[in-house]
């Protein structure tokens, strides 16, 4: 009898919980949606690693590949600055090169970028003023990988569907970017941005990034089991030159305890095992 009442009580609590959750979600402001989406896309866990494979296909159907292991660490838990470390495995001419970024969200501060070229043992510092250039020749831009800061755009909730919040994002400084605005589809349950469509003047759609596969990655956070929804396949299409890039993300692990020292010259010159495996 007692057990039964506990079960009923539990269901009741759960039901109220869901109902409240739904209610709260409906009342979310645009800024809250953007903040959550930004967190989901870039900041889950204190750190993480994974293997990135890019298949780049041009208009003629010719294929090129990129493969690298990526380490990422959040500087704090405020969803702002981050550090990235990419160790290249393919193609052959960039094998064992390392690309490291200290990302700064503040608009007045450029990211710090380094490139290590093993055949010359050369640590090169790279000027990083333009984040809207192609990342390693793919259809993804630097900004697609390390994230576009929400403070760079004004956001407007233009539509709610059963599945998505649909946001229109207009750059505050249009001279810095090649698009006039972009439309983001954000999943209502996970807050993951699932599709972004970039438009040029005259509402001309010219670029699409779409998440095509989402997986739950198990991890532990503060001793508790958690599952991080993670985009494991996404496709970027450039409608102007007819090329597309499929990016898959595998061997994903979160909260692996990466130290700050990984993102220094020491590990730039000799990669950590985390990046090699």
């Amino acid at each position: 009898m007692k057990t039964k009442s506990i079960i009923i009580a539990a269901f009741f609590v759960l039901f109220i919980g869901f109902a409240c959750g739904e209610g709260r979600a409906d009342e979310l402001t645009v800024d809250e949606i953007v903040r959550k989406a930004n967190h989901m896309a870039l900041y889950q866990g204190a750190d993480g690693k994974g293997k990135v494979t890019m298949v780049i296909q041009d208009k003629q159907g010719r294929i090129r590949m990129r493969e690298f292991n990526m380490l990422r660490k959040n500087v704090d838990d405020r969803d702002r600055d981050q550090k990235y470390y990419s160790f290249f495995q393919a193609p052959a001419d960039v094998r064992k090169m390392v690309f490291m970024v200290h990302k700064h969200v503040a608009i007045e501060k450029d990211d710090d970028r380094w490139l290590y070229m093993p055949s010359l043992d050369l640590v090169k510092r790279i000027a990083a003023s333009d984040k809207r250039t192609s990342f390693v020749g793919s259809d993804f831009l630097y900004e697609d990988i390390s994230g576009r800061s929400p403070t760079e755009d004004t956001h407007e909730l233009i539509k709610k569907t059963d599945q998505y919040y649909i946001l229109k994002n207009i750059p505050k400084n249009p001279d810095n970017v090649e698009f006039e605005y972009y439309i983001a589809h954000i999943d209502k349950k996970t807050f993951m941005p699932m599709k972004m469509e970039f438009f040029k003047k005259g509402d001309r759609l010219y670029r699409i990034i779409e998440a095509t596969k989402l997986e739950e990655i198990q991890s532990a956070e503060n001793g508790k089991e958690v599952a991080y929804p993670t985009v494991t396949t996404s496709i970027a299409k450039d409608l102007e030159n007819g090329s597309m890039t499929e990016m898959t993300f595998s061997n994903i692990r979160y909260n692996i305890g990466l130290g700050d020292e990984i993102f220094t010259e020491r590990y730039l010159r000799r990669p950590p095992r985390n990046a090699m495996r």
Partner: protein
Amino acid sequence: MIKPVNPGKLFFLMLFFILMFFEPLVHAAEANENSSPDQFPSLEIHGFLELRAGCRMQNDPHEKDISVMETRLQAELFTYTDWAEFKYKGDVWGDGVTEQGECDTREAWFFSRPTDFLDIKIGRQVLTWGTGDLVFLNDMFPKDWQSYFIGRDKEYLKAPSNAAKISFFTDLANVDAVYTPQFDSDRYITGEYISYWNERLERCAGQDAIVTADKPDRWFQDDEIAIRVYKNINNYELALYGYHGFWKRPGGQTHSGVAVFPDLNVYGFSARGQIGLGIGNIECAYYQSVDDESGSNPLVNNSEMRCLAGYTQDLARDFNASLQYYIEYMLDYSDYKASLSSGPARDRDRHVITLQLTKLLMNQKLELSLSSYYSPSDRDAYLRPNIHYKYTDKLTLETGANIFSGEESHTFFGQFENNTNIYAAIRYNF
């Protein structure tokens, strides 16, 4: 280049191979105990096959018309275990200029990270530090300007060192110490591939007057020590440098005209970081020519101050420019001039402006680049345009030129005027 094997080199090679072969055995035993197949090291094998050909644009009475003509195979082997990493990288090539088969081990080292604060890398390795873009002040590791000038890949500008590199990492600062037990000189211009100004003959010379040098080569006596102390403060990279060894290319000659490598100490500093939209760097080095502290010995290089200031920035999408100003200043110039017996005197200062432009096109498959050096004091220049096209991930095509120009034939770049060349290459990566 094939050279007789000396005992020190043999020691390094033996150490390397002993470590290579014994370690997996030890490991295999361990692995058997806890039967974890994941722990077996995997051997990575990569490399490339390349054809490269180039010719002089004018007649050079002292050299062949071909500037470079080679079929080259580079192979790279890498493996690692829980406690160390091992790498071998070597080249073999048929050389149309020397008309010989050649080989060169570029890397043969083991690396270990035994504690939180220590890294060790021992063996044949390529080493680079400092902030200059194709200008080296405190980087006293061997260069191969000969390869660079005939249009080999940029990778070959750096020649390997047989050395031990120990790195310490502390909160206060990081320290790199490199010990080279036997002096590794630059692969300097000898006349074999590139004609040069011969001071004794007072004219340009090449294969008719190959430089004979008396290179210090006693193991553990003619050694080199290079130290760098560095720290990153808010991503401004600061460093102090010290070097004890020899001038890296002949810095003097005996009375009979044999080139020698006088003793040299170098002390310097550098700083690099974000300034405005780009990256700024400064670097200075004091070259103390120990064998001629007074500057009065005409047969040994004068002491010098060398300073560099540079700035690099993106000018447009996928278009980068890097501008540098470099100066060499002789410290005992009046003594040098007074003691000079014959031949033209060099200027007290040598000023060089370098400009590197790089533009990427066609989804970064095509790279157009121009490296240029111009000296207003010597009134000479060196231009290195290059076009590099990645036809596929594996196949690359390349063409370029090395253009030397100068008003006088004894200045740094002017002496190479007859070596102006164009080249093309095709490379298959595996």
